[in-house]
């Protein structure tokens, strides 16, 4: 459109949109968990590099993980991952085709609960396997 519209429709600005509604604030918070997921991927990548550099480097990395700063950081990471998990499964009923079991649609809350339950099961399995392998 090159000629200005004589009806002069008014287009409102989008700046600051996410602060206008609590629903959007929560959305931005759960999107921000990505920063923590990236941070954890980088922590692991550094660990891999240290592992390749030899035993002394690896033990240095393990020591670094034991520092209070690292521990607090991982508690924050854990909170972010748990929140990611909850919000991931909370939206899942909206993102998948309807699940029909015995002629009835499975309720959204049930799908979310199954997702969270799957995380609990996976977590326990990983913990038990790791415990068994390193005991």
């Amino acid at each position: 459109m090159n000629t200005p519209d004589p009806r002069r429709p008014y287009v409102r600005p989008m700046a600051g949109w996410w602060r206008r509604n609590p629903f959007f604030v929560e959305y931005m918070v759960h999107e921000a968990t990505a920063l923590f997921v990236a941070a954890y991927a980088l922590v692991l990548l550094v660990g891999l590099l240290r592992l390749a550099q030899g035993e002394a480097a690896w033990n240095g990395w393990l020591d670094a993980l034991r520092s209070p700063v690292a521990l607090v950081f991982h508690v924050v990471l854990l909170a972010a991952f748990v929140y990611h998990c909850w919000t991931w499964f909370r939206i899942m009923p909206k993102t998948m085709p309807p699940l029909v079991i015995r002629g009835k649609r499975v309720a959204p809350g049930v799908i979310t609960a199954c997702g969270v339950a799957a995380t609990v099961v996976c977590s326990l399995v990983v913990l038990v396997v790791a415990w068994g392998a390193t005991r």
Partner: protein
Amino acid sequence: MKPIPRRSNAPVFWGLFGAGGMLAALFGPVLVFMTGIAVPLGFILPSDAMSWAHMQAFAQHWAGKGLLFVVVALFMWHAMHRILHSLHDLGVHAGAALKIACYGLALLVSIVAAWVLLALGF
């Protein structure tokens, strides 16, 4: 109506985002707990669970390699896709340069992870 725009290449990145997000939801919390809390404190898991010998053995096994690679790479692809969209949400719109920066970082992390894991030998 404007002519229909080009077909989107998003499925590739969306697929990686989804796979990484699912992995992070199912296994992220327990992995962070193990590597960042339980092992450093010797709590639940023995404090030598991630000893040099254990981790060498784990990273030299093909299955261990695969798991480590998938976790590091997919977490990164998931995160960078989401960060790219969050920047768009904040008004920083994704031009080619920003896309290359975000997905490029994920690709770089994947390549480094693969290279290190191969260098660790079998």
